[in-house]
């Protein structure tokens, strides 16, 4: 299985690469302006990054094309997640109370991304902005005390996103979330 990490300039982009490598998939970090036709992959992870997605979407390269045209499972993380949501019609705004470091995730809707996970666990965050006004067509899967939209699944498409950082050691069950994502990829290939 080949799952590449699209680099949106995150502090933890390389951590995503490491988690995937540890899970035994073929992986590589690629710049976010890599043409979709050059991506012969089974799935993508859209990394986080320092851009304020709402006003600096130009720094998000070809993320929109990956979401629109590749028809493969994609997991957006932090800025990658925010971009995915805003591209599909949600709004972004500066968070009233931003989250840095520890937070408690509460799962609202179980699906394949969160299968076999507890209802609530510790995650690590690092974001100034937040997603709001989620359109029809997108399911909200989880929240924290200060952030209503922590995870989403796009209905009818294998697109997933998380605001928190499953690739970080301090996040509980982080590797399990990646494993679940890889199961989704496996199922999608069939």
């Amino acid at each position, binding site marked *: 299985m080949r799952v590449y990490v699209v680099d949106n300039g995150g502090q933890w982009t*390389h951590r995503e690469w*490491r988690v995937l490598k540890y899970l035994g998939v073929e992986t590589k970090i690629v710049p*976010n302006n890599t043409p979709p036709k050059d991506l012969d992959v089974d799935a993508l992870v859209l990394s986080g990054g*320092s851009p304020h997605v709402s006003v600096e979407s130009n720094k998000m390269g070809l993320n929109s094309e990956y979401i629109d045209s590749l028809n493969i499972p994609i997991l957006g993380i932090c800025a990658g997640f925010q971009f995915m949501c805003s591209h599909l019609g949600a709004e972004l705004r500066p968070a009233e109370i931003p989250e840095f*470091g520890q937070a408690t995730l509460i799962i609202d809707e179980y699906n394949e991304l969160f299968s076999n996970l507890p209802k609530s666990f510790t995650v690590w965050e*690092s974001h100034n902005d937040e997603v709001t006004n989620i359109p029809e067509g997108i399911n909200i899967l989880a929240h924290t005390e200060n952030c209503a939209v922590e995870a989403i699944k796009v209905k009818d498409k294998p697109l997933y996103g998380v605001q928190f950082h499953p690739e970080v050691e301090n996040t509980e069950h982080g590797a399990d979330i990646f494993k679940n994502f890889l199961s989704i990829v496996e199922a999608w290939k069939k």
Partner: protein
Amino acid sequence: MFNADAFINEAVEDLKKKIQGNAIIACSGGVDSTVAAVLVSRAIGDRLLTIYVNTGFMRKGEDEEVRKMLTDLDVNFQIIDASEEFYAALKGVSDPEKKRKIIGEKFIRIFERSAKEFNAEYLVQGTIAPDWIESGDGVRDTIKSHHNVGGLPEDMNLKIVEPMYDLYKDEVREVARALNIKVSERQPFPGPALAIRVIGEANREDVEIVRDACAIVEEELEKASAEGKMVRPWQYFAVLLPCQSVGVQGDNRAYGKTIAIRAVESIDGMSAAYSRIPYEVLDKISMRITREMKQNINRVVYDITNKPPATIEWE
């Protein structure tokens, strides 16, 4: 999972191909650079010269410890005392990024001189992933310029070799254990050393203060861990803050500086949580610092910030 033996074999083979002729390695005696020294030494033997620079910012007793460690390691090494040079270069500089860049450049100028003498074209560094990630690049913000990446001058003529570029600290430790390197469990210590644990200008007087405070923090936490009162934190040290506060010492007014204690739990240094040190251990550290260092310090605080939003070091 990470396979240390496979990594070692690949790295040594790769270094054999990459390094034609002589090389020098910058070794601080920490885990990263010592592992790099051993890997390269396996690949090219005596064509490698290991260099330890005494910057004047090292911890108590560190120069001697590293000399002994390098002797035991049986590598070709040289110790350079450059403390005058470093203090002179940092005089009047208080911006943390400037401090880091000046230190980075100083290191390189010293290595260039040694490389010339040793007829070496290559500079090996123990750079690991967080160093280049946090130093920033075209797409990544600069969190802090690590001296060995973001602190490199543009006009350097040494070819850089970084065998552990993609590894994190936990993986480097696995490699160190596989190589039987004694310092495998040593706590991380930044390249710019105590210069970035003095907030503001790193002059001799203030570095001496933070050196003493770091020694007390290390001693007490190591003792408490050995006695089973706590698990030794991932990293632990003292920072000298420039803010003064009022105190009372033996009925006399005191107006001294502040020491912050920092101790964190981490795996890879890319995220961290502050350590839950037992109060009795914090008490002991606070009492020792304010008594033994009463001339300079009359207040001790404990840093309870995670990474993010803070970083582990203060600068």
